[in-house]
Structure formats: structure tokens, C-alpha cells
């Protein structure tokens, strides 16, 4: 693995960003993850994960449109970088390899 590590929670947020595509902004990410994890998350935890990953080069962001429910404040839409996708692939491969070993052992 690379020097830049991806935490477990960060990985989840990152995957959510990719899954949501153009809808990937703060509130939507929070809701999506809450639905999937079946637990309440704070804005603070998600935001700090997002900012951290932006610093590490996993994410880029641009201002999106605004809605009346936001009191005129713009959304920030996140998108994963190719680098992030590569890291995710790597993690997945490592995990798959491990699972394969475990399954083989189980059958012996």
C-alpha cells in the first residue's frame, strides 16, 4: 500500500461520493451513508473526512447550484480523483485476496 492511507470511514465516504455522482454534496452524502449504515452521523465527522481527503488528493470539489432551502448558500459537489479510484481498486484487491485465502482454508 501507498504511504497515504485511507481510513475505514474515509473509504465509506469516498465510495458514497462516487456512487452519488453529481448529487455528491454534504447533505446527500450524509443521508446516503446514514441509510446504509443505519446510524446517525454528525455533519462534523463527514465534513472533516471530506476535507481530509481533499487535502490528501482523493477528492476535488466545485461549487454547485443553490436552493431556497439553503438560504442562498451554494452546495459543494465532490468528485473522486482517478488516484482515489486506483487506491480503492487496490484496497478491494487486497481484501478479495484475503477473503479468497480464508475461503480456501475453510474448505480444507
Amino acid at each position, binding site marked *: 500500500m501507498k504511504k497515504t492511507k485511507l481510513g475505514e470511514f474515509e473509504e465509506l465516504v469516498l465510495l458514497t461520493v462516487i456512487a452519488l455522482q453529481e448529487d455528491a454534496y454534504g447533505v446527500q452524502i450524509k443521508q446516503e451513508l446514514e441509510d446504509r449504515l443505519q446510524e446517525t452521523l454528525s455533519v462534523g465527522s463527514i*465534513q472533516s473526512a471530506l476535507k481530509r481527503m481533499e487535502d490528501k488528493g482523493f477528492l476535488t470539489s466545485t461549487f454547485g447550484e443553490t436552493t431556497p432551502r439553503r438560504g442562498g448558500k*451554494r452546495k459543494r459537489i465532490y468528485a473522486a480523483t482517478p488516484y482515489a479510484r486506483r487506491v480503492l481498486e487496490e484496497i478491494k484487491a487486497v481484501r478479495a485476496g484475503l477473503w479468497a485465502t480464508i475461503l480456501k482454508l475453510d474448505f480444507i
Partner: protein
Amino acid sequence: MKQTDPQSPPEWPLRFLRFFMKDEYLEEIEGDLEEIYLDNLDRYAPERARQMYTLEVLKLFRPGLVKNWKVSNQLNHLDMYKNYLKVAWRNLRKFKMYSAIKIGGFAIGIAAAILITLFVLHESSYDQHYANTDRIYRVINNFADPTREADRWPAMQPQLASVLEEEFPEIEKSGRLIPYDWYDAGSNQFRPEERVQNNYEEGFAYMDQSLLEILEIPMVYGERETALANPKTIVISQKMADKYYPDENPVGKSVILNEKEDRAYTIGGVMEDFPSNSHLQYDFLLTLTEEEFWEGEQTSWCCSNYNTYALLRRGTQTEELEPKLLSVRDKYLISHFEENGDVWAEKAKNYLTYDLVPVADTHLKSKEVYDVFPKSDIRIIRLFGAIAVFILLLACINFINLSTAKSANRAKETGLRKVVGSHRSHLIQQFLTESVLFSAISVGLGTLLARVLLPYFNELSGKTLSFPWTDWWFLPVLAGVTLLIGLLAGVYPSFYLSAFKPIDVLKGKLSRGTKAAGIRSTMVVFQFATSMVLIVSAFIVYNQMQFILHKDLGFDKEQVVMLQGTNTLEDKLPAFKDELLRLPGVTSAAASNYFPVSGTKRDQNSFWIEGRKNLDPGVGAQIWRTDEDYLSALDINLIAGRNFSPDIASDTGAIVINQTMADKLGLEDPVGARIENWGKWTVIGVVEDFHFESMKGGIGALGMIMSERGSILATEISAENIEATLAAITGIWDNFMPNQPIRYTFMDETFARMYADVQRTGNVFAACAILAIIIACLGLFGLATFMAEQRSKEVSIRKVLGASMSSLYQLLTADFLKLILISLLIGAPIAWYLMRNWLEDYEYRIDIAWWFFAVPGLIIVGIALFTVSRQALKLAFSSPVDHLRGE
């Protein structure tokens, strides 16, 4: 809070968010939060939605998202601070008088705070030094008869200690102490066996070997485990060992008390001197091993003379143990009462319980326990603590006031710094640096001042405090205090000064320091109100003191010399007395152990009318042994019956009582009545009540029986030729007792010592009051000077136009006078409330009169006016040309 649109998120959390969130993230996150808030509003009650919003905001406060306040971390801080310090130093030198007032006031305040803090620390450090402090308890009787005030006292029966240790596994060890004048405890004529000359020594107490171990008293010579184990052993303090046995180990040597060579004590060990913060202060510990003061004393449950200490096992809960102790009460004490048909059996069963009180509570938290240890009132200690804080506050206020008042001088600098690129935070840093510099200089000076004043303060407070230079905490605390006070005093001026708008300042628009005038006035009022409270308090304490010292006591304490140690004259006492009376300056002399001043003997008994011992609860009364000259030597008035006479044989069974005793026994015609305690007595006379205890309490019942012996001979002498009379008395004494130096005290001095604590409280109050007024006046002087500068043009123009000197004076002083008067009005009721509470401790007290407020008020107005006038007059008399030439 004002009503807001329910659709908009709560105001304060939002403000907080905007305050801390990084600017680049704010728009996004604020928007997100608002969206979530509106979603929540649809789902939940508004109250809950707001709560959730607040919580989210708080959870956003984390390192990655919070603003980076270090705006300029690229700059070289060190150089900037160097510059700040340089500018501060230049300012300090440029305005010498203001700097002196700032620093001087600060230093005085800090010195006072340091001294008071040392005092408070010492007072609250009592009895913390034992190895097992938290497990050592005193056993205290608690007698809670609902018809009267609860009585608490530590004296126990001789066997209680050993019974406790045997019957309760929770008690690891117990030990006894006799801390008052009793047989050889108290004071004695003392000499090592090999010497002839006696010395009078105080500080004797009886102690069990086990108590020596419980308290783990450190030993210099001898073993702690055996020092008092053998009968007739004594442990002496290092101080005494150095005095009588310099440079040698005295263990095993014999000492003689009061010339009783058949009862010599053997030194079992030398202990270190008790630390000054121990409730025990003795130089000689006599063993209780195999000591029996009279036949059957040790096995009887009749008499309570032993203070009992217990060392509890680790983890013992006193609340659980205390109720169990009652079995001892029932098994031994009450059965003793019942065997003797004593009415106390019933009373003790209903009301008597045993409390375990931590030994560390002895000094400050046992005010209501009737024992002999000197105590302090925790309220007074807290009050002193509060005073220290207030004096510091006063000093800080001076700093703030003068800094903001002189702000105009710094405004240009501030403006220029801003124009050149200083951020506001830099300016705040600058002014805080400056105030920390001032604070550091002041703390340094203040500490020095405190060190210089310490001996005087010790005298004032009756303590032996020293500077804890070597304690690890002292210097760090001092440094911390420097920073804290620097920041505290600097925070307002720095925000105030750094808020100037450069454009206004440089255009010269800034009104010269008038903006903060309201706050400055408030602070002056605070300072003078505090001064008023302290001065009135000191004044009232002083008056109460004078009242006590000069009250008609019912006896005459003037011109009475108390010759001490006359018991050693033994059979020669009457001859000695006769010879004294032959001296022309001596009018009368009376021998007794009992006198109406503290430090002399007391003996509390219960009295009944004859035959009613098992019917009535009994009247608690002192029984004093005096001779027939007692009443005349002390000028005590006999109001009925007659005095003792050695010529009447039956007077050995006679008693003279005071009015209170007659009232309490319900004797309508006391003379001739028969009363009893452990013996039976015929009342032959009644004396007028006289104050024989501290005036904090009322006058108790008292009976006097006849005895020729006494360790004190009270000798009334005439006012002329006191020196010669004393010399003659000394000559006679030396003839009688060549091996024992004469020792005498004046009764009025001994009496005054009874109220030493009141005097000390008064002294400390007075000192604080003086300090407070000095600090307040320093500040006022600074403000007056500033005001004079500020209004110099106005005054000059008025003068040119023909204003009279007196109208100018009025103009310049009226504002200040108003402030002072407001302070007095605020301070007076506070002082009245505090002092009323303090006076309630005294059975005999002064009434608070109007002039207790008027006199200090006048003094304050006078001092303040004097302070302001100098500047006002200087300006009023100055030539207008000087101030107007510049225009």
C-alpha cells in the same frame, strides 16, 4: 432573546459557527446545516430541531475545520516581541508618574495578596503532616439535648481508649492525651537531676505511648516504639534538649519537676519540635503508662479527662462505625450512672453520641468543640482570602483605568501600526505583552516588599510565617500569577486600544479617552466602595475591642501583679504573704490557682440543692479554691452574706457563690442554703457577677471555696513607685526561693491577651483598609491628573472669560466627589451587614451607631478630596497662556 423567524436556525450557534469555521468552508457548511435544519423542522418539534442544530455546530468544532488563528505564522515573532518590549519600556520611562502609579499600586496589591495568601495557606495546612492524617480521628462527645445548644467536647473516661481498641476491629490503635493543666501537665518548675537551679517551663502534657505511634512523631534520640512505654518516662522536644543538654544524647537521664525528687522522670526520647501548624504544641510529653491519679481512677467511668485519638483501619467508614460505638456508651458509661442512681443515665441514653472527627479538622472546623487547642474561624480565613482577591482587583483596576485614560497618547501609535500593516491581533498581543511586562515588574517588586514586610506581618497576625522559596510550587505559581494578572489587567485596555480606526486617529478626530469614562467611573466606585467596607469594618472591630478591654468586668484588673509558681513555697506561703503585705506599696494579696483571666485553672462541676442530686439534672458551675483575701485583692463586690474567715472553723465547708449560680439553683434567699456537688456546702455569701471567661460568652455559674494554697499570688499594689515595689517583692522572693527565679505578670496584660485574636483580626483589617485606600487613591490621583490635562484648555478659556477660582475648583472636583459619595452609599450597607454578623459572636457587644459610618465616610471624602485637589488647584492657578499658546 428576541423572537426570530422559526424558519431560520438558532442565532447563537450560528454566530459561533461563523466565528470559528474556516472562511473557505463556511458557505458550504452553513448551507448544509440549514438544509438539515429545515428537514428536521418537518420531522420534529422546533425545540428539538434547534437542539440538534446546536449539537451539530458543536461537533463541527474540530481541528480540521476551525480557523487558523495564527494569521501570520511566517513572521519572526521574536523580533516583534522585542519591539513591543522596547516600546513598552520607552512608554514606561516617558510617563514616569503614571508608570510609578501603575506599578506601585500593583506591587502593593501583590505584596498584600502574597502575605494574606501565606497566612491563609498556613491556617489551612494544620495537621496535614502525619503519615496517616486521613485515618486519624478524635473521639468527640456530642450531647444534643434539644432544650439547649448542642455540647461537643473531647474529654473521655480513662478506659474508653483501650475498650475501643479491643472491641472494634475497625480501630487499629487508640491513644490518650491530657492537654490541660492537670497534675504535672501544664507548666512546672523543671530541672535536670544534676542541676540545682529550677527553670519555669510550659508545654507539659500527658500522652500514651500508643498516641506517639499513631501521630508518628519523629524522634531525634530514642525509639518511638518505646520512648513512653515505661512508667515515669518523659519525651522532650529538641528545643529543650538543646537548652538543657547541649551536644549530648539525654536519653536515660532523670529530670525533676517542682522539686519532687521522689517522682523523678526518666528521659525516654527526644522528639523533633512540633511544626507550627500542628494543633499539639508541647515540649514535654509525660507518659500515662501505669499512671493513676487517685485510687481506682483508671478503672472508673466517673470522670472524663482524656482526649482520645483513634487510628482507623484503611477503608473504614466513620458513618458506619459511629453508631456501633454507642454499645460502649451503654455497656460502660450508662451502667456506671445507673449503679450510682445518677439522673444522667437517662439523659446520656437519649442525647449522648460519639463522633469521629478527622484530626485535620481540629484547627479550622471544630469551633464548637469545647477544647483547649487554639482555633481559627474558617469564616475569618475565607474573609481574608476574599480581601486578598479584592485588593488585587483594586490594583488591576488602577492599571485598566490609567491605561484607557491615557489611550490618546497611544492612539497615534496604534493608528500608524495599523496603517503599516499590523493586524488587530498583533496590537492586542502588543498591549498584552506590555501589561505582562508591567505585571512582571510589579510582581517582582511586590514579592520583595512582601519579604521585607513579613516580620511586621508576623507580629500583626501572631504567626511565624516564612517565605516558601524552596517549595517546588512557589516560583511557578508566582510566574503563573504574573501572567494571569498581566492578561487580566491588560485584556480590556488592549481590546479598547486596538479597536481605534486608523483614519480617525490620524485625522485627530479621536476624543481624548472620554469613551470609556462610564466604565472608569464604575471602577472608581468599586474601589472606593471596597475601601469603605474595609475601613468601616476595621473601625467597628477596633471599637468592639476597646469596649471589651474597658468594660466594667465586676473585678479590678489594674495594678494587680500575678506572682507565678507560689505553690513551690509550700508551707512558707503564708509567711511570704505576710512579708509582702508589710511592704508599703502592697495593699492586698490573694493566693489561688483560679483567676478571671485565661491560662489559669478551671474546674467544672455539677451542683444541686442538698438532697436533690438524683432528682434534678444539676447546675454546671465552676468551683474555685481561693483564700479569704481574694475578694478584696480583685475588688469583687459582695452583695449578700459574708466572706470566708480562717478564724471560723466551719468555713472549711462554706461556699461563696455568684448571682448567676444563685439564680440557676433557684435560691431565693441564698445565704445559709445548703448545696452539694461531690461534697456538701453551706452558702455564706453571694458576690456580684464578674466576667471570668471571654466576653464572647455570657457569665456562667461560679462557686468559691476556701483554700490557703495557690500557684498564683495576686498582689494588688498602689500606683505610685511601681518599680520600687516590684524590686522589693523580688527581694523577698529571692530570700525565700534562692533557686527559683521570680516570675510575674500583670493581670491587665494577661487579660488583654485573651482577646489577642480579636486584636489580630482588627489589625489585619486595619492594614488591609489602609492598603485599599492607598491603592484607590493612587488610581484617583492618576485619573485626576489626567482629567486636569484633558480639561486644561477648557479651564484656561473659562479663566480668561472671568471664572472665579472657587467655581473652577468646584468644576474640577464635583465629578469625583459624586463618585465617592455613591461609593459610600454602596459600601455602608455591605459593611453594616458583615459587621452585624461578626458582632453576633459576642454576648457583650457594641451597638452599630451612625457615626461608625459617618467617621470613615468623612475620612474617605477627605483623603479623596485632598488627592484630587492638588491637581485641580494646580490647574486653576496656572496661567491660561501656557495651555492656549499651542492653538
